[in-house]
Each structure stands twice: as structure tokens, then as C-alpha cells.
């Protein structure tokens, strides 16, 4: 399994094996498109860009993630009016995306879990892609449908921004957990300030600090649970 050339009449100090590797490396190389190259520059990581762009092509995970995202979104915007639903929604969505691209669905999940560019960072990137794609679709659909408009403005666009914030924080801090925490804080602040501003969620409760703290704590717990969701392995020894 050496793949080297035994050249009979070539100069002894010329390494033709090394030359061939250089040639064939160039021949077999994939040339990333403009989108991937831009993403690689933005994320400062060609591996992350590639992982991101393979997201939609893994169809089954994409569908499951979509159900999670849209379902959670519907609950958040049209739900019973309890803020807790809105606060938990990102956790549900994240858990859905994590499950979709995690064990059982993503065929190479175990290998991905051993990679230097960790599967959690990849998860954040994929969450961003799922939300961004649906935000764009939602914007397009908003012209035709009021329901789509509410869902887009009330859930998809904010969550896209939250995911982007989470990813940026993760890249800066070099830690996926910091990213998730940042994103969740952003979302919680957003929800609570909506409530305070226009009583959007029509619960007849007054805004008090202890309740806000409780919601924040619950949101944090859901976030941590979601962050660890892809890490739970089936118990096969």
C-alpha cells in the first residue's frame, strides 16, 4: 500500500512519488463554489463552511429539523399566551436540529463527534442555516399569507438573528457553550421586552422580577439540555 513509483532511469535525487502526489492532489481537488469560499472567509474555517453547505443536502435531517423549527415557531407565536412557551421554543428547535443531525440520523455522527471542529459548533452553524433559509422563504410567503408573516416576523427572523449572535459569540470565545448561552440570553431578553412593551402574549400576569428570573433560569436549563442533546449516546457498550 505504498503507491510509489520505481523509476528505472530517472535521476536518483528526484522524488517522482512526491511529484505524482502533487499532481494527483491537484487533479482530485474539489473546487468550492463562491458561496462556500465566502462562508469559509466569514467563518474563518473552510471545514465549517463545508459542513454548513452540506446541510440542505442531507435531506432527512433537513426535514426533521424543519418540523422542529416550524413547529416550535408556531407554538411560540400562536401559543396559549404563556411566555414560557415562547421561552422554551428555541430549546425545542435546537433539540430538534441537534437530533436531526445527531446520532441515528446523520450517518457519520460518531466520526463527527471526534473532530477538532466540534459537532457543537457545526450544530450552531446548521441551526443558523435552517433558520435563515426559512426566514427567507417566510419573507417570500408573507406577501401572500398573514400567518406566514406573523411566523416570519415573530419567530423566524428573530431566531435567525439569535443564531447568528450565538455563532458569532461561539467563534469569538472559541466555545460552543458560550455561543448557546449568548443566543439564549438574547432570545430571552427579546421575549421579555416584547411582553413588557405591548402585552403581545396576552397572559394577564404582571411583569415581576422574580418571575422573569424564573423564566430565565428555565430557559437556561432548556438551552443546556439542548446543547447536550447531541451528546447523549445510545447505551450500547
Amino acid at each position: 500500500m505504498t503507491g510509489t513509483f520505481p523509476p528505472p532511469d530517472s535521476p536518483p535525487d528526484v522524488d517522482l512519488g512526491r511529484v505524482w502526489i502533487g499532481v494527483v492532489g491537484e487533479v482530485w481537488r474539489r473546487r468550492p463554489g463562491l458561496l462556500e469560499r465566502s462562508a469559509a472567509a466569514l467563518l474563518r474555517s473552510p471545514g465549517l463552511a463545508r459542513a454548513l453547505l452540506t446541510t440542505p443536502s442531507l435531506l432527512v435531517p433537513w426535514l426533521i429539523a424543519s418540523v422542529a423549527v416550524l413547529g416550535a415557531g408556531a407554538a411560540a407565536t400562536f401559543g396559549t399566551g404563556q411566555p414560557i412557551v415562547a421561552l422554551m421554543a428555541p430549546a425545542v428547535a435546537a433539540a430538534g436540529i441537534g437530533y436531526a443531525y445527531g446520532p441515528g440520523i446523520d450517518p457519520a455522527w460518531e466520526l463527527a463527534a471526534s473532530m477538532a471542529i466540534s459537532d457543537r459548533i457545526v450544530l450552531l452553524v446548521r441551526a443558523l442555516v435552517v433558520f435563515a433559509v426559512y426566514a427567507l422563504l417566510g419573507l417570500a410567503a408573507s406577501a401572500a399569507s398573514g400567518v406566514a408573516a406573523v411566523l416570519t416576523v415573530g419567530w423566524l427572523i428573530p431566531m435567525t438573528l439569535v443564531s447568528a449572535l450565538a455563532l458569532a459569540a461561539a467563534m469569538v470565545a472559541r466555545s460552543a457553550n458560550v455561543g448557546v448561552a449568548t443566543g439564549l440570553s438574547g432570545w430571552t431578553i427579546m421575549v421579555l421586552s416584547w411582553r413588557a412593551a405591548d402585552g403581545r402574549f396576552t397572559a394577564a400576569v404582571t411583569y415581576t422580577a422574580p418571575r422573569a428570573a424564573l423564566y430565565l433560569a428555565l430557559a437556561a436549563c432548556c438551552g443546556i439540555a439542548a446543547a447536550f442533546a447531541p451528546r447523549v449516546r445510545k447505551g450500547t457498550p
Partner: protein
Amino acid sequence: MDDDGLIALVAAGDDSALRALFSRHAPWLAARLRAALPAADVEDVLQETFIAVWRGAGGYRPDGTAGGWLWGIARRQAALLLRRRGPAAAVLFSQVASDQDVGDPADTVPDRVDLDRAVAALGPPGGTEREVWRLLYLEDRPVAEVAEMTGVPPGTVKSRAYRARQRLRAALRADGSAAELGSRMMRGGAR
């Protein structure tokens, strides 16, 4: 399979055919290049040569001159590599690259050549021989183009190039560190 067939397969995107071409031709190409270039440069030139073969196989007309075609690509790649080093390095290779000279039997590769002096022997910049040598060897333009650019017929271009090479050879030989390279290098072209 013969070379023409392999090159046709390469043009169609078959990388195993490229590998077969490499096994067959890289050794002798390496030997020829090695007479004029250090080993590291030979490796770089060979790599660029076969990448160029991969990309340009479609331009080959199957008339049995695969060896000459390959050597032509190798020469051009060597010239490109040397050009990046500066005109002095190209001087040496221009001795090698010509396919019209009768070779000098001396085989020695120069240890130290006073290349700037040799280039100066071609005359002042802008002079006829130096200009022709610069366009033909440094910038690797075809004879017809050089003829057009200098406003003289191709035959004149060729004879000026010949005189330039003679002067270079004389200057290099006079240094005592001969730049005469084997006749097999001089003859370039088809194998």
C-alpha cells in the same frame, strides 16, 4: 496503450490514464530537466507539467509526437519557473531550451556562472539581440509574435536568436565555468 490513446483518455477525464503517462514519461523528462536544474526545481517543473497535461490534453493532435509535446510543455513550465527567479536564471535555461543548436559534447553543469556578465555580453538593453533574446526566451513568446513585435521577418528573428545564444555561450565559456550542456539536452524536441 499507445501515448496518443492515453492522452485522448486524459482529455476525457480519466486520471488513471494520466498516471500511466506519468509512469512512462516522467523518468526521462526528469533526467533531461535534471541536467539543467537542481532536483527541487525538477520536481516543481514536473508537477506543473503534468498538471498542464491534465488541463490541456484536449489540445493535443494525435500524430505520434507525444514525447515532443510533453517536452514542449516541460520546457515552457521550466521557463515560467525560472522567469520568477529573474533573468539570470533564464539565461542558463535558454541554452538548454533551444532545439536548433548543435550540441557541445561537454557535459559539465556550471557551478558558478557570472550570469550578469553573460547577459551584458548580449549588448545594451533594447539592442537587437538582447531584445530578441528577452522576448523569445524570457517571455517565452513564439517566433511569429516576436517577429511582429520587432517588425522584422521570422527568419531574422531566428538568426538574431542564434547570434544571441552564441554570444551567451562564448561569455559563459570564457568564465571558465562552462555552461555547455549535453547534446542530448540541446536536441530537445521529439524523442
